[in-house]
């Protein structure tokens, strides 16, 4: 009930009406039409920045994920029942996630200069936030039975984690890792902010010059890569599940 009231209030506040959207659909169609045919000649230009983006995303995502593992474990109540530790960890995690990438960019540019390194750091923090948060919630949802069994054999906390938690949470972790990697590849505009180039910059450029045919080729290339990641991710998950 409260929910519906809140929703209606929100709709009124934002003037949201489906009617407007339906009337406006043809306008959207116009723009989508402009994206075709894609400007294939642009492909050689975007190839290299795309690879750069992937490079930076791989390193940033991996390091972020590695950093996320201990934090996620410390945040999960079923692994770390002492609130004295898990609560502050959660707060720190919240803080990290709040900081917008723009601010990260400003700081890293000032401290480490423009270039891929600063970009990698920006992605690292971003990835860390997502992966740690999602993983710790997945950990809290695992089957407690094996944890119990491990507790019963006198395992230390880390042993419980290694034998009871990791096998169960691993598929989730991998899935989040790959998901974040995908986000990093396609939403790499932050790399442009720190002068690391990347595909986001070229997208900005195409849009700035209203070259939607070029934007569409960028989207297509990204799509191919995202699909490849998706494919790999499914393969890996099927192995782990």
């Amino acid at each position, binding site marked *: 009930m409260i929910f519906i009231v809140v929703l209606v209030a929100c709709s009124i506040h934002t003037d949201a009406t489906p009617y407007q959207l339906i009337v406006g659909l043809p306008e959207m169609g*116009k*723009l989508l039409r402009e994206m075709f045919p894609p400007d294939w000649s642009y492909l050689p230009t975007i190839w290299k920045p795309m690879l750069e983006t992937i490079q930076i995303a791989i390193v940033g995502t991996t390091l972020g994920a590695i950093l996320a593992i201990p934090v996620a474990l410390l945040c999960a109540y079923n692994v770390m029942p002492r609130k004295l530790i898990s609560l502050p960890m959660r707060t720190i995690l919240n803080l990290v996630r709040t900081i917008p990438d723009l601010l990260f960019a400003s700081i890293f*540019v000032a401290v480490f200069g*423009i270039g891929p390194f600063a970009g990698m750091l920006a992605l690292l923090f971003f990835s860390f936030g997502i992966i740690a948060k999602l993983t710790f919630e997945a950990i809290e949802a695992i089957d407690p039975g094996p944890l119990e069994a491990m507790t019963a054999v006198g395992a230390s906390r880390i042993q419980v984690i290694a034998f009871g938690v990791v096998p169960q949470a691993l598929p989730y972790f991998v899935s989040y890792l790959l998901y974040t990697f995908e986000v990093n590849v396609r939403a790499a505009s932050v790399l*442009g902010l720190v*002068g690391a180039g990347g595909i986001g910059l070229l997208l*900005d450029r195409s849009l*700035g010059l*209203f070259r939607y045919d070029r934007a569409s080729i960028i989207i297509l290339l990204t799509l191919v890569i995202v699909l490849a990641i998706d494919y790999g991710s499914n393969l890996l998950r099927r192995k782990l599940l």
Partner: protein
Amino acid sequence: ACSSNVSNNNSASTPGTDGTKSESTAYVPTELKVQFVPSQNADTLEAKAKPLEKLLGDKLGIPVKVTVSPDYNTIVEAMSSKQVDVGFLPPNAYVLAHDNRKAADLLLQAQRYGIDDATGKDTTEKVNFYKSMIVVKKDSPIKSLADLKGKKIGWQNVTSSAGYVYPAAELKKAGVDPDTDVQGVTIKGHDAAILALLNGQVDAVAVFQDARNTVKKEIPDIFEKTRVIHYTAKIPNDTVSVRSDMDQAWRDKISQAFIDIAKDPKGGEIIKEIYTHVGYEKGDDKNFDSVREYAEAVGQTVK
């Protein structure tokens, strides 16, 4: 979100009938949607819409809705699909919108105080242009454009008049090809460009005049540490444009409203504080031919 008190004392309260010469398709607004992208050469940026809503609403007698966008592409697209009536567009955006998208017509050009080349401070002269400059470190051996050959230059995005189009075109004129003779690095933000220069990551940067002010709080002696080697030609100030099917009578009315607001002591203060505009003058599309010419020079031919 609409301005509240619409004192309907304005003569043109019966729109649509008085525009005798207007073609049948001309658009007559009943609510004016304004969107602006604050221009990059302002030194105080406020994302404030409300004050302008009230000022304009009082003058025009119809509700006014003002929104802010950090990106001009969205404004141009919104104008082309008739979702926005009036846009404050930077010069290159205006040219693209007018020539390429057929989405906007020029109404006014903003005036700002000029900037003293020597000190980087504002003058008291109202001008309708600004400039771009190429900055190097104080102790750099680079003295002229020609010296930039083989050096590393920090550009802004290629769509930026001050951060790429003008300086690159003039570099070309000086015999240095901006694509092949120098090593270009794209930096987002004029402030970040200045920092990159100070850190020695690039040998020179192209920024608006005088972007060094933006980092002055952090690096107070920025003016002592850097040197300007080149000022570009005048770049027209940002525009007030209307969607291309706007009714002529309303174009005049809107123009007059802006000019009046700038002259009004209270209104003037507000637009200065928020948009650093100190006045408006009738826009002339010819002023923007230089923008077209420079864009062409760097290979951004307008279709």
